[in-house]
C-alpha cells in the first residue's frame, strides 16, 4: 500500500515538473489611449507557440501588435489589426516579448484579449512506465477532448464578438438618447431666438422712422 502511494506521489511530482514546460495564458486587459503594454514569456528552443489576439471594445476596434525574440528581431508586426493569430517555433532560448500599442489613438481606451499558447498541453496522467499504445477507449477520449477544446475556443471568440456587438449597441442607445434630447433643446432655442431677433429688428426701425418723420 505504501509503495502504491509513493508511486502516485512520484507521478504527481512528474506532472508538476511537466506543467512547467507547457502552458497557455489568456488575459483580457484595458489599454488606455497613448499607452503600450508589453508581456514577456520564457520559451525554450523548439517549442511551437501561438499568439492570438482580438480587440473587444474601443474606438475602431484596432490595435498595433509586435512580437520580438530575445535578440530583438521582430517576428511579427502588424498595425491597426482587429484580430489575428500567429504561430511560430522558438528558434532561441530566452524571453520573448510581445507588445500591444494604442499610441495612435488620442482618446479611446481599448480592451484587448490575447491568448498565448506555449507548447502542447501536458499529458493528463503521466506514466513514465507507459510502453503500450493507447487503447481505443483512451484514444476516443483524446479526440473528444481535442474536439471540446476547439469548441471552447470557438465559444471564446464568439463571446468576444458578441461583447463587441453589444458594446456598439449600448453606445448607439445612449447616443440616440443624448442627441435626441439635444436636438429638441436646440430646436426650441432656435425657434424662440428667431422670434426674439425678428422682434428686435422691427422695434429699431420704428424709432428711426418716427425720427425721420419729424
Amino acid at each position, binding site marked *: 500500500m505504501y509503495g502504491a502511494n509513493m508511486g502516485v506521489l512520484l507521478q504527481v511530482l512528474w*506532472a508538476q515538473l511537466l506543467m512547467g514546460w507547457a502552458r497557455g495564458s489568456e488575459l483580457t486587459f484595458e489599454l488606455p489611449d497613448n499607452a503600450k503594454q508589453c508581456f514577456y514569456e520564457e520559451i525554450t528552443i523548439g517549442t511551437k507557440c501561438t499568439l492570438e489576439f482580438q480587440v473587444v471594445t474601443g474606438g475602431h476596434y484596432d490595435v498595433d501588435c509586435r512580437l520580438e525574440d530575445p535578440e530583438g528581431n521582430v517576428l511579427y508586426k502588424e498595425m491597426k489589426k482587429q484580430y489575428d493569430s500567429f504561430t511560430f517555433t522558438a528558434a532561441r532560448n530566452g524571453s520573448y516579448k510581445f507588445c500591444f500599442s494604442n499610441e495612435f489613438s488620442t482618446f479611446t481606451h481599448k480592451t484587448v484579449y490575447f491568448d498565448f499558447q506555449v507548447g502542447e498541453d501536458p499529458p493528463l496522467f503521466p506514466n513514465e512506465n507507459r510502453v503500450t499504445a493507447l487503447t481505443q477507449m483512451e484514444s476516443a*477520449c483524446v479526440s473528444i477532448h481535442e474536439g471540446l477544446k476547439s469548441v471552447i475556443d470557438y465559444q471564446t471568440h464568439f463571446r468576444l464578438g458578441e461583447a463587441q456587438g453589444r458594446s456598439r449597441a449600448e453606445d448607439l442607445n445612449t447616443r440616440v438618447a443624448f442627441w435626441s434630447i439635444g436636438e429638441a433643446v436646440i430646436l426650441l432655442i432656435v425657434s424662440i431666438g428667431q422670434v426674439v431677433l425678428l422682434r428686435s429688428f422691427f422695434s429699431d426701425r420704428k424709432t428711426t422712422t418716427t425720427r425721420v418723420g419729424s
Partner: protein
Amino acid sequence: MSPFSQIVFIALLSSLSLTRALYFHIGETEKKCFIEEIPDETMVIGKYRTQLWDKQTAAFLPSTPGLGMHVEVKDPDTKVVLSRQYGAEGRFTFTSHTPGEHQICLHSNSSKMALFTGGKLRVHLDIQVGEHTNNYPEIAAKDKLTELQLRVRQLLDQVEQIQKEQNYQRYREERFRMTSESTNQRVLWWSITQTVILLITGIWQMRHLKSFFEAKKLV
C-alpha cells in the same frame, strides 16, 4: 503516508507550480487590471510572483521579502468580491456568483518603500478559469480513479463548462435584444416628439409674429 497528508502534500506542490509564467513590468503606484468575462458558479484561481529590479547587479532578484501586492476583485455590479493584501508570492481564488465581467486588479503595496526607489517590479501572473482550475493528478489521487475514469472526468468537466458558457450566452443575447429594442423605441418616440415640437413651434412663431405685426400696424 495517510491519504490526508498525501492530499495536503499534493495541494502544496500544486500551489508552488509558478516557476515560469507570463510576466510583465509594473511601476510603483501603477494598478494593472484584467477582465474575466465568466458565467456564474465558475472558479477562478490566480497565482502571481513578484521580483524586484536590483540596480547593483542589473538583474531581477529571485525573491525579496517585504514586497506585497494588493489584489482586488470586483463583480459585474462593481461590488468588491475580494480585497486582500498578499506577500511577494501569492495565490488568490474566488467563485463568481453573478455572470459577467469580473475585474481583477493588482497594485504593489510593499512594506518597505525604500526598496522601490526608481525600480521596476516584474510580476509573473497566471490566471486559470473554470475547468482549467482542476488539478487532475490531485483528483485522481483523491478519488482513486483509473486513467480512463480520469479522462472521462475531464471530458465531463469540459462539457459542464461549455454548458455554463451557453447559458451565459443566452443571458447575454437577451440583454443585447433588450438594448436593441430600447434603441428602436427611443428612435421612434423621439422622432415623433421632434416632429410635434417642430409643428408646435412653427405654429407658435407664425401666430406670435402675426399678432406682433398687427400690434405694430404693419399688417
